[in-house]
């Protein structure tokens, strides 16, 4: 059997390793999060679900952060002592009570996090309230097209064979009267503090509708219409990013969403040309 010293196991390796773990990882990890909070962090939330999701995120972060720190401290202590020990190692390999403890304690923490997460997840998927602003968002390679239902509150039928790049980007079927008052735009405008009901569609491949400040993300699946509901709370202009690889232009699929007052929204909508082909 080998002589540890001859195989390069220098005395002090354990101490050095513990220090690296303690300083670099345990402390560094925690400190870096505080540094990051100042400059690379969650963009300020601008919707009701942002508040709930952020709260869940921070709670999880604190719990996992504490575990991260404590486990690394423990690891550092163990290898510090293990490197110094001259007596034989302890022949100790079972303790049911201990094992049950550290089976049940993580289970309890995780069950709590599951329950908290379930509440938020359910609320995010609540049905759209009656006063929700209905809008269709259609993702394509490589941009976003939006459609408002107009006065009748209904969207006209679309047909893939009727697409034309500029005049009829959604392929609205002229035979459907419900489509006559549909308004097609290249910017998404919504009203502050009013729920938005988005019908999400895709023209060609998978995309994903992601507005970081709203904490909203939903895949746009070709052949399906997804429904999502959110409520913006802060007026302003925000970016839409595509969050599902959709081809070469995935990184330039930037859209724009404007949150404004009801009056400003109506003025803007009135100024848009109806889409009737």
């Amino acid at each position, binding site marked *: 059997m080998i002589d540890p010293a001859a195989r390069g196991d220098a005395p002090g390796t354990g101490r050095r390793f513990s220090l690296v773990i303690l300083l670099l990882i345990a402390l560094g990890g925690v400190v870096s999060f505080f540094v990051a909070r100042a400059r690379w962090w969650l963009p300020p939330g601008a919707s009701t679900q942002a508040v709930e999701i952020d709260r869940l995120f921070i709670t999880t972060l604190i719990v996992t952060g504490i575990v991260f720190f404590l486990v690394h401290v423990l690891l550092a202590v163990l290898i510090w002592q293990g490197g110094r020990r001259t007596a034989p190692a302890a022949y*100790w390999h079972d303790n049911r009570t201990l094992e049950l403890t550290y089976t049940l304690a993580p289970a309890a923490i995780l069950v709590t996090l599951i329950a908290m997460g379930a509440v938020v997840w359910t609320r995010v998927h609540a049905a759209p309230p009656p006063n929700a602003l209905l809008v269709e968002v259609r993702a394509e390679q490589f941009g976003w097209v939006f459609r408002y239902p107009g006065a009748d509150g209904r969207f006209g039928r679309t047909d893939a064979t009727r697409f034309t790049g500029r005049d009829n980007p959604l392929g609205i079927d002229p035979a459907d009267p419900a489509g006559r008052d549909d308004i097609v735009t290249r910017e998404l405008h919504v009203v502050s503090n009013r729920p938005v009901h988005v019908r999400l569609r895709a023209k060609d491949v998978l995309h994903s509708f992601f507005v970081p400040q709203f904490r909203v993300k939903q895949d746009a699946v070709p052949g399906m219409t997804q429904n999502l509901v959110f409520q913006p709370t802060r007026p302003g202009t925000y970016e839409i990013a595509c969050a599902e690889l959709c081809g070469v232009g995935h990184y330039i699929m930037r859209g724009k969403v404007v949150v404004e007052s009801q009056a400003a929204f109506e003025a803007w909508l009135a100024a848009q040309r109806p889409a009737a082909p």
Partner: protein
Amino acid sequence: MAVTHEAHTEHRQSFLTRYIFSQDHKIIGIQYLFTSLFMAIVGGFLAMLIRMQLGFPTAKFYWAQWLFPGGFTNNQIKPDFYLAVVTMHGTIMVFFVLTTALSGGFGNFLIPLQIGARDMAFPFLNMMSYWLYPPAIVVLMASFFVSGGAPNAGWTSYPPLSAIPNAAPGSGLGQTLWLISLAILIIAFLFGSLNYITTILQLRARGMSLLRMPLTIWGLFFTAVLMLLSFPVLFAAAIMLLFDRLGGTSFFVPAGLVVGNTVVQHSGGSPLLWQHLFWFLGHPEVYVLILPPMGIVSEVLATHARKPIFGYPFMVGSIAAISFLSFIVWGHHMFVSGMHPLVGMAFMTTTLAIAIPSAVKTFNWLATLWRARIRFTTAMLFAIGFISLFVTGGLTGIFLGSPAIDIYVHDTFFVVAHFHFVMASAALFGIFAGTYHWFPKMFGRFMNERQGKWHFWLTFIGIYLTFFPMHFAGIAGMMRRVFSVSLYAHLQALSWVNIFISLAAFLLGAAQLIFIWNLFASLVRGERAPQNPWGANTLEWQTSSPPPHGNFGHELPVVHRWPYDYSVPGAPSDFTPQTVPVSAVPVPVHGGSGEDERDSRER
């Protein structure tokens, strides 16, 4: 490679049958390891290309344009080539490096040796398993050279992007070759799994009951079960996607698509179905990648801490629980895909549940280190490093497993950070620990410890510096697979983060050169290693280094105890191999509470 032979006139082997088309599991395992190393260099190089772009999008790389004239223009990478690089990096690392090195490499080398068998149950099938791997590599790499280039739909290859040839440049022949390559490799994995499971069930030495098997074998056993049951599903999906592309079917492509101003002539398929089938494999696959390293780490920790592994029954139970649960969590990759929210709730529960056995294992490793007498060999450093990396990566999994949080972090760099910690780091550390630990057994020589230590420190620190900041990029909202973040106001602040990550990544990549040098130099002129340099208990250390053909000489070993009798009180040395009868070295009765009762029963 010096394979010693006893008086052996039964069959003379040519160079071809001894080293190339070998049916000896040890040779096959080493073949897998070296081929995986080659692919790791390719995959790692692709990662450097990614970091060049993300860290320095405006820089000019003249040498890269010279190497890849089709992929670079104006000395800068093109978006379609960038996506091809991203796709191939992921594919190569997951399937062609980690799976092959762990299951193919360590699985093959260790299983017969550690259970006391002469070889696998089906040596010919084993040889076939390896020899499907190089053709799969050739088919995969060929995609770089065909019109349209390598696929650019990500390693996840979601249709319709991957199904419609003109949806992306790489969705032409490149994507077809990718699918064929995976199909070939999956068959290789299936042959391997059949062999491993059968061998472990049937060929254990006398006295090697299941509960006396080393944890490495338990890990490899369940890994083989996972592979056997989950890879066929990806195979089915790949066949159907091939038919969608080439046969005009519509398994995954719905009606009414318009790509590039042409209406696509498909109808009735479901893109979501591909995701379900892919992740039904994809999730167990990541456990295929972490269970063997967990086993290896258990082995290395016990050996170099001179202490029994703590909680062996719970360790085995945890491996079983992780394996079972891994089949019912796949939906957590699809929380925002359009699944019903209730389904999301179910997957959240199972996903967070799978954290429990992982936590149990982690605490058991920590308990193994308590009151241990640690030898900080390079293998041990990597095993301890694994614990740190697994904890970090596992904890971020808790964020991702909660669908409400996942709404925000899905498809951002937070996910990239998470899986690089558990796969690229933890699983990789398992491979490194296993290499440094078993290199003497494989080749009869030691690797250089000094170089090993340099490799460890640069890699361990390099990994944290590279991947930890990715969490922040993700929290700030940086999406995955983006060629550039310059367009987005909310991402402008990230350019410094990306530069930092890229520089750390270059350092990390360079550090691996030390390992590669060490590996090859030690093969040729490493210090000779004895039969049992680490004073270890498992069966492979009770035979020569390297083992002879047939592994154990004339008599197969007989096993009398579990593998973790290190530092038994009253024993003549601090290790007691599995072949030592209990009467010779009795053990304390109640799992080592320190009482001085001796037990001469065999456990």
